[in-house]
C-alpha cells in the first residue's frame, strides 16, 4: 500500500559503524515524553529494591564516593539517530550492585517524573551499564537526564533512563513505559529490535 515519494530518502546515510536503519548525527537530540524534572543533587537518591523487598540507598555524596569510570561508547536511539564515541563519566552498576543480595533476572529502572524501562539484570552487569553523571566532561544537563541517568549503550537509548532514581529487581519480566506500548522488550539495535515482535 501507499506510494513512494520520489527523491525522499529520510535522514539516513547508514555506514558500517551503524546498526541497520540508523543515521549518524553530530548533534545530541533531546527526546522528551514529559516535562524535564529538575532534581537538585542535595535531594537526589538512588535506591535498589530487591525481589525480597530489601532496599539499598545511595545519596549524591555516597555516589560520588564510589570509584568512577570514563566511558566512551556509541549510542543508538530508536528514532533512528546514532551518535558515535560519546564520552561519559559514571559509576558502574557492577560497583553499585556488588553487595546487593539478589537472584533476580530482571530489573525495572524508575526515574524522577515517572518513566520506567525494563532491562534484564545480566545486561546491567559485566561492564555493560553505568549511572552516568557527566557527559563530555561536564555535569549532565537536565535535558539529557541529569543529575544522573542510566547508561546501557548496547541497547536502544530509551533503555538508558534519564533522571534515574532506582532499580527494582524481580524474578519476572515486567514491561516499562515504551515496552507496554509497542516497543521491543529487549531492544538490540544490531538486530533492529525496535517494536514488539521484531
Amino acid at each position: 500500500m501507499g506510494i513512494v515519494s520520489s527523491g525522499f530518502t529520510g535522514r539516513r546515510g547508514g555506514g558500517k559503524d551503524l546498526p541497520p536503519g540508523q543515521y549518524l548525527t553530530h548533534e545530541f537530540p533531546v527526546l522528551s515524553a514529559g516535562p524535564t524534572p529538575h532534581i537538585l543533587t542535595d535531594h537526589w537518591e538512588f535506591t535498589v529494591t530487591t525481589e525480597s523487598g530489601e532496599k539499598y540507598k545511595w545519596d549524591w555524596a555516597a555516589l560520588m564516593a564510589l570509584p568512577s569510570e570514563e566511558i566512551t561508547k556509541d549510542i543508538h536511539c530508536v528514532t533512528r539517530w546514532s551518535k558515535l564515541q560519546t564520552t561519559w563519566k559514571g559509576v558502574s552498576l557492577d560497583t553499585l550492585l556488588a553487595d546487593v543480595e539478589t537472584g533476580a533476572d530482571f530489573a525495572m529502572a524508575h526515574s524522577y517524573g515517572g518513566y520506567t524501562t525494563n532491562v534484564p539484570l545480566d545486561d546491567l552487569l559485566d561492564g555493560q551499564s553505568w549511572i552516568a553523571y557527566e557527559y563530555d566532561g561536564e555535569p549532565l544537563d537536565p535535558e539529557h537526564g541529569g543529575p544522573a541517568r542510566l547508561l546501557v549503550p548496547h541497547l536502544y537509548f530509551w533503555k538508558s533512563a534519564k533522571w534515574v532514581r532506582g532499580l527494582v529487581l524481580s524474578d519476572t519480566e515486567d514491561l516499562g513505559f515504551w515496552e507496554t506500548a509497542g516497543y521491543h522488550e529487549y531492544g538490540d539495535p544490531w538486530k533492529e529490535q525496535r517494536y514488539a515482535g521484531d
Partner: protein
Amino acid sequence: MWQVATVADVRRETETARTIVLDVPDWPGHLAGQHLDVRLTAEDGYRASRSYSIASAWSVSSSNTIELTVEQVPGGEVSPYLVEVLKAGDPLEIRGPVGGWFVWKPEQEGPVQLIGGGSGVVPLRAMLRAHADAGTTPVRLLYSVRRPESVIYVSDLKDLAASDDVDVRLVYTREAPAGEPRVGRIDADLIEQYVFKPEDGATTYVCGPTPFVETVADLLVAAGHDPARVRTERFG
C-alpha cells in the same frame, strides 16, 4: 485513512516557505483552522509524517483543491522535501482534515482575534479567508514576523486589510520596514492597543512556535482575558 493527493501547483511565499496546492479526489471539505498529516515514504519503505495547517478556506467552488503552506525547518526531515523537492504533478499521501478545536465557524458569535507568530499565520489565513466568504463579525490579526521579507501571504493580507471588518497589524521582531519605528516582540502594551478587550467577547486564536504561544497566552490571561476563550496551536 491515508489517501493520495496530487500536487497541482507550488508557489514560493518567502525564501523558506512555499504554498503547495493539492488536488484531492472527494475532499469532504474542512473547517478553517484544521490541519492534515502528510506522509513521505522512501523507496525502502521508511516513512516520516508531519502535521501541517490548511491555508485555504473551503467552499463548494473550491471543492477538491486545498492549500498547505510549509516553512522549511533547518535540519528537518520532511519540510525540506516539501519546500525544495516536491513539484507539480507529484503524488502526496495525506490524512485529514483533522482537528475540531482550533477552528473558526461562520456561525460562531462574537469578534475574532487572531494572533500568529511566523508560519503560525497559516491556519489564521484560512480563518481570514473563510471569514471573507461568510463572516459578519469584526476580525483582527496581530502577526509577528522577524523582518519584512518573512511575511507570507503579503498581497493576500493587503486585500484582506482593505475590508472594513478586518484589521491587520504586523509586528517585526528583528528588523522593520522604513516608516515602522517599533522593533520587538509582542508585549503587554501591544496586547492592550491591538487586541479586543476582554469584555468584547472575542474568541482568540493563537498559533506559532511553542515559546511564542506560551508568552502570548500568558499576556492575554494577565490582561484579563478568559482562558476558556483563548485557543492555541503550538508547532514546536
